[in-house]
């Protein structure tokens, strides 16, 4: 573990994992996850989570920090199979923040909360001194509670749920949020919009249809590569995916090519990876494609049992020219924060 915090510790990749292991898990709980499932009165179960949001610029094509703050927490609850219900919101405002800007972000939060079917029930505000020189920032934290089984039986949904033979799906194109934010920072005029969205509709439709979903994970910082590596590791299986089947929009593809980025490691804010029973794979795809924000859903690979030369936790990508490459978590994005 490094002695001081660097931006790498916020990348969502390996350094973040090391920080959690060295500091947070040691102090709080070994099995900390994005969202926790808790029992109330011994019977009814709720899911609970929290997330903080820092993004520059705060308003971008396809979203803003307010929409992001609702979607991030709502999606974390959904990925446990819970029906998101109540959120709290905390604001840390730097001195000099424009009220008009804050108000715009909060209005967007309210609209997104309505779309996601959640209510913001409590809040807090703190004002801190500015950096001096640079433009004043504000940061938002949200925490949320969701009802387990609110949409249907979610008992089988877990990060370790993948089994040999399962199908690996994604709910849409990769890298849009990353490209939108980076494009805005670089001052590039373009058509790329962030995918910033709550995934309520698709998760509800899947669970209500009784699809055997073994794992759901929102693909945010660190990108699809990081998410799949983590899920292969926690399920102790091997994932095989095909580069050509991973949906990436043409605009994001050329943007990534220009900047030397790999869409496999670009962040999203309205996409998930899911692992379902092979028998339900086609039905899942149909449901995803008919759901809001799921029109580009695709099946990208399958789960296999580990063998000698591909041990558990391996993620093997077949490239467009038929080469094989093993996929690791994102190491260090070397770039300022995107979400």
């Amino acid at each position, binding site marked *: 573990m490094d002695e001081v915090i660097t931006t790498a510790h916020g990348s969502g990749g390996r350094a973040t994992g090391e920080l959690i292991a060295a500091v947070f898990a040691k102090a709080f709980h070994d099995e900390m996850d994005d969202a926790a499932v808790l029992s109330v009165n011994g019977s009814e179960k709720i899911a609970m989570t929290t997330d903080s949001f820092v993004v520059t610029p705060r308003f971008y094509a396809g979203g803003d920090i307010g929409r992001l703050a609702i979607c991030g927490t709502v999606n974390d609850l959904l990925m446990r199979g819970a029906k998101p219900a109540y959120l709290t919101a905390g604001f840390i405002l730097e001195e000099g923040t424009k009220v008009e800007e804050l108000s715009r972000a909060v209005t967007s939060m309210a609209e997104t909360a309505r779309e996601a079917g959640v209510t913001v029930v409590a809040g807090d505000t703190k004002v801190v001194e500015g950096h001096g020189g640079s433009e004043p920032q504000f940061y938002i934290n949200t925490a949320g509670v969701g009802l387990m089984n609110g949409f249907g039986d979610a008992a089988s949904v877990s990060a370790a749920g993948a089994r040999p033979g399962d199908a690996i799906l994604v709910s849409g194109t990769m890298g849009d949020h990353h490209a939108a934010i980076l494009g805005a920072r670089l001052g590039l005029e373009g058509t790329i919009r962030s995918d910033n969205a709550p995934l309520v509709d698709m998760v509800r439709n899947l669970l209500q249809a009784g699809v055997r979903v073994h794992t759901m994970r929102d693909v945010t910082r660190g990108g699809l590569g990081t998410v799949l590596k983590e899920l292969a590791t926690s399920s102790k299986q091997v994932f095989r995916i095909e580069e050509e089947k991973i949906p990436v929009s043409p605009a994001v593809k050329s943007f990534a090519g220009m900047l*030397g980025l790999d869409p496999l490691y670009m962040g999203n804010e309205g996409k998930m990876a899911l692992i379902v029973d092979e028998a339900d794979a086609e039905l899942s795809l149909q449901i995803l494609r008919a759901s809001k924000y799921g029109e580009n859903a695709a099946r990208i690979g399958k789960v296999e049992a580990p063998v000698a030369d591909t041990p558990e936790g391996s993620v093997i990508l077949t490239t467009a020219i038929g080469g094989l490459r093993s996929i*690791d978590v994102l190491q260090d994005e*070397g770039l300022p924060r995107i979400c």
Partner: protein
Amino acid sequence: MSLDLNSVRDYLKHYDGPDVNLMEVCGSHTGAIAKNGIPSLLSDKIHLISGPGCPVCVCVSSYIDRLIELSLTENTCVVTFGDLIRVPGSQESLSIARGRGARVRMVYSPMETLDLAEKDPATTFVFAAVGFETTAPVYALLVEETKERHLSNVKLLTAIKTMPAVIDSLCSSHAPVDGFLAPGHVCAVTGYTAYEGLAKRYDLPFVVCGFTGPELLIGLTLLVKYRGQGIVKNAYPRVVTREGNQEAQALMQEVFEPAPAAWRGLGIIENSGLVLKGSYASCDAGSRDLSEDNKKNRACICDQVLTGRKKPVDCPLFGKVCSPMHPQGACMVSQEGSCFTWLTSGRQR
């Protein structure tokens, strides 16, 4: 033979002639080879070696140390591309120095330095000008613009390298190489006449190559096919011409002059770098004479990896003490570094 994708794939997979060692001397090629899973498509007789073509990897420690020193100097801010921030100097990296107050600014284009300097005239902005002939014209443009806008608070700390002399040095020291993938982006600027001389002198094939999967497979096929012959083939004609981009060359020659350069692990190589000419000396933040090269970890074999004598997996530190999170040498930092790409793509051969 036909050079369509299926034919070259078949040829490379089933090649059964004498063992052949092929070196790519461009960091972008190193990255593209890993990304496309090329090693898995080659016969056991074909060995790929990464050469000294990742600009970050060949920086000597004294260059990083000097950047850190500048970043901790009052009224001074170091401006850099992201890659360089985590490269270890002899003691620490810019990233760690930033944790104790160093001023380091990450940019996507060197030209952003101009706006920073205009907005904050009390601060001297030092751009970490690392790279090969591909980025040198942009640095030349930065210097010219600095002059044009009469900015006295923009400086460069340069570590600009040029390819032909280092390849010459590898060949004359009998590095185990049977052919070179010549750097496509560099050749787009410089052309490839310099490689024609090297090819003849050492009886080695050079193939100017692009960066897509199919282009790499074609480039490698040509190298195997022309093994033992001193010729240059241009397999990237949509971008590269024999003479290169003359406008960019003129811009470079206006601002820079050839000089000896220090390479990590390779020592000082005559005529393998570019430094600011005397008439632009006022823009230099003390780039000359940064040749000292102290390894952070003495067991690191970056030098032998960069010259093709050892593979990353041969290093006792690889994947253990040395990882992208805790790099002991520069080859593990850059996304184009051979150790980084071997580790993160699970490459074994």
